[in-house]
């Protein structure tokens, strides 16, 4: 992180409010201590995030006093892009990928931190820690810069940018163990609680607000659930769990038999779909 702050003119940390972002925020506070992190935090809001996430975000920003930028794709909002009507693929494309590019262009950020990890998905396993993006934000997996030792090439031409993934070599379990060890605050949705959910396409969807259209025969049921990953509430599945504390979550993780991105609808739309999204500029 210090490498980026020292080498780029206008870096930003992408803040998705999830557990990885919480870890990143914590690391940023540690890396520059006693100075505050010398960059703002950007949240790309799709307007479909869980209510508790937004509340948590605002609380953290107030408590730690970091500079928070929130960007919504206003054009997408006007077009009424909606995961139910338009499908998860278009929703993600417009409200996340497009919105992110808009924000990066608007603020002219030349480096953006993300919390992606190589253990998450196959195409992410090949991502560099410093990942080069062309002026139109595209990722070319066949033409990545070789990355040796800890010597990161931070040189770019005007208009180009770098995405930086400091957690590349962490696993999901590492993240949880670190949160436990450092007592890092996270969104309460990660802890099991009785919540209203509906079962759809084999996933448990939280009834977070009245925008969720119930299909014929669907009835919200109360279940003790928690989330392993947080995104847009209509696209993120909960798991049934009793893990209500950090040690219980870590214990549950050690027994886990499914990957965390199973809870994400967008990865399943088509084979190799994450790689396509990344090439187009998704994080």
């Amino acid at each position, binding site marked *: 992180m*210090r490498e980026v702050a020292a080498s780029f003119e206008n870096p930003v940390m992408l803040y998705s409010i999830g557990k990885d972002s919480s870890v990143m925020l914590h690391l940023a506070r540690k890396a520059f201590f006693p100075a505050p992190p010398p960059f703002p935090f950007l949240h790309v809001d799709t307007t479909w995030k869980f209510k508790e996430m937004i509340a948590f975000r605002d609380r953290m920003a107030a408590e730690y006093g970091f500079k928070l930028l929130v960007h919504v794709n206003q054009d997408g909002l006007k077009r009424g892009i909606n995961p139910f009507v338009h499908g998860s693929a278009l929703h993600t494309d417009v409200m996340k990928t497009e919105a992110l590019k808009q924000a990066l262009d608007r603020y002219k950020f030349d480096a953006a931190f993300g919390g992606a990890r*190589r253990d998450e998905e196959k195409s992410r396993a090949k991502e560099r820690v410093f990942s080069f993006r062309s002026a139109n934000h595209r990722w070319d*997996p066949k033409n990545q*810069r070789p990355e040796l030792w800890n010597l990161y090439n931070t040189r770019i031409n005007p208009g180009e940018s770098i995405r930086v993934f400091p957690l590349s070599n962490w696993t999901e379990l590492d993240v949880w163990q670190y949160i436990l060890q450092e007592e890092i605050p996270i969104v309460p949705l990660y802890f099991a609680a009785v919540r209203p959910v509906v079962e759809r396409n084999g996933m448990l969807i939280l009834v977070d607000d009245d925008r969720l259209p119930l299909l014929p025969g669907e009835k919200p049921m109360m279940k003790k659930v928690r989330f392993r990953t947080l995104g847009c509430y209509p696209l993120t599945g909960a798991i049934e769990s009793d893990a209500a504390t950090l040690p219980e979550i870590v214990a549950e993780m050690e027994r886990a038999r499914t*990957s965390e991105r199973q809870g994400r609808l967008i990865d399943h739309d088509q084979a190799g779909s994450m790689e396509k999204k990344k090439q187009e500029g998704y994080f």
Partner: protein
Amino acid sequence: MIEKDLLRFLTCGSVDDGKSTLIGRLLWDAKLIFDDQRQTLEAESRRLGTAGAEIDFALLLDGLQAEREQGITIDVAYRFFATEKRKFIVADTPGHEQYTRNMATGASTADAAVILVDARKGLLPQTRRHSFIVSLMGIRHVILAINKMDAVDYDEGVFAAIRDDYMAFAAPLGFAGLACLPISALRGDMVYRRGDSMPWYDGPTLMNCLEEIQSGSDAALLPFRMPVQWVCRPDADFRGYCGSVESGRLHVGDRVAVANSGQISTVRRIVTFDGDLQEAVAGEAVNLVLADEIDASRGEMLAAADDRPDSCDQFMAKIIWMHAAPLLPGRKYLMKIGADLVPTQVSEVKYKVNVNTFEETAARSLALNEIGACNVAADRAVAFDPYGKNRGTGRFILVDRYSNATVGAGVIEHALRRATNVHRQKESVDKAARAAIKGQKPCVLWFTGLSGSGKSTLADLVERALHAQGRHTVILDGDNLRHGLNRDLGFTDADRVENIRRVAEVAKLFVEAGLIVLVSLISPFRADRRMARELLGKGEFLEIFVDTPVDICRARDPKGLYAKALAGEIPNFTGVQAPYEPPEAPELRIDGASTEPEVGASRVLALLEAQGFEADSASMA
């Protein structure tokens, strides 16, 4: 946070040696494949049918669509798994010949290497290449896994022959630990389970080996080194030097030196978010407050005052070239070493290494995937240790100054003392004094353009005009110099770079002598003109681009060269087979097609005046 220790290893082998299958097998047997990943895998194995009715473990690894379709791994993929004893990060590196650079990337962070050999094929050129890179990158533990034993009926003789071949081959590479074992990744024999197919083998399984290898490095035992990444100054009262401790230990009260300047101070505080520390060790990120005001900006190295690194501007290094455009001696690149970024050139390629035979052959440049021993000259002193002594501080990468691509990686063998012992002679009569006696300001007028563009004609006219004004001038004409100073040089890219380097150095000497130097040289590459510009003082280099379209030059063809080149009699002729990179921001551009030479010459003289090179004319006479 990591209670179990971590081993980073890489796998390497040829395309069909079954690396991906092996890693898939390791993950599978470690029960690391999640249920949903297994379902996807089973479905895709059936769809692609690459492993018949069985599960194709390779599909777990091949993340990128293109390689999935081509059936080869084209980049480095990192996988994570753990056993009861330790955690692993495995880098899957490609076997395909053209992707050696990725293998070096994977090797750079690994503690151990698993080199795969197909039992049916034995050692291949790539086995040798990969072993060599593994050795070059300082990996000390190597496991030679002789795979596909199932395909040779688990024949002990086949295994023994390959093992003996490899032992003989690898002896000069100096691996601290080398184990050879027979496996079948497909069936799982000798990976986790021993299986019952090879009762004749009583050595460890692959997993036994991986769990036993000593992980990490002995970095904490080496002298203290910390590159300064960032200087932390939240307010006027606090000044901290941030970085990760690359090697050694540091206590409050220890004396540290700034490696390049030799300034010494004492550690007053080791600051972290979780409170001050008394001691920091290799691998920790810290913020150091020193007792004295010293000058250490980003890029400097802090080191144990009583055991310091080398600090010098020339050293010998092994370089792996990773770019399609070859390494050219004399061309300026950016070297990143520690947190330092320094303009640097390779002054000489001593030899390149044939990675199959380890034979050293003479070379003047390095092509993609070639490895060579080079003398490296940085623009100023950098701090380092030989890579053999300290893996953390003896390595660097080279970055192209235009594309910003990472073009090479190097490991330092030793400092070149000749640079440190040859101190510059301080001159009593300097450039300003020599120029003053001539009543002029010296500079270089660098005419660049295609052959036949009119450079020499223009330079000649300008010199005549300057001479008539009583100026002291000299012309360096590319063609004329090739009859003398540069007659040993040809027209390859490497020779062109050297040609320009020599001309630039001579021009510099003449500027030192107080002369106005007119250089007339095709000088087709931006990088080399930039090198010349940087060799000279600020404002002393005036680039004049004689911009004449190639078809006009061809039609003029005053020396009949284009005709010969087009007939294939002159190879590498600029504008025919070789490229010309036009200047992006020359001090003056002259349209060689429509400008009369006399008009062009008067514009050059006007440029000199505008730049203040005529300002002293009143004082002469």
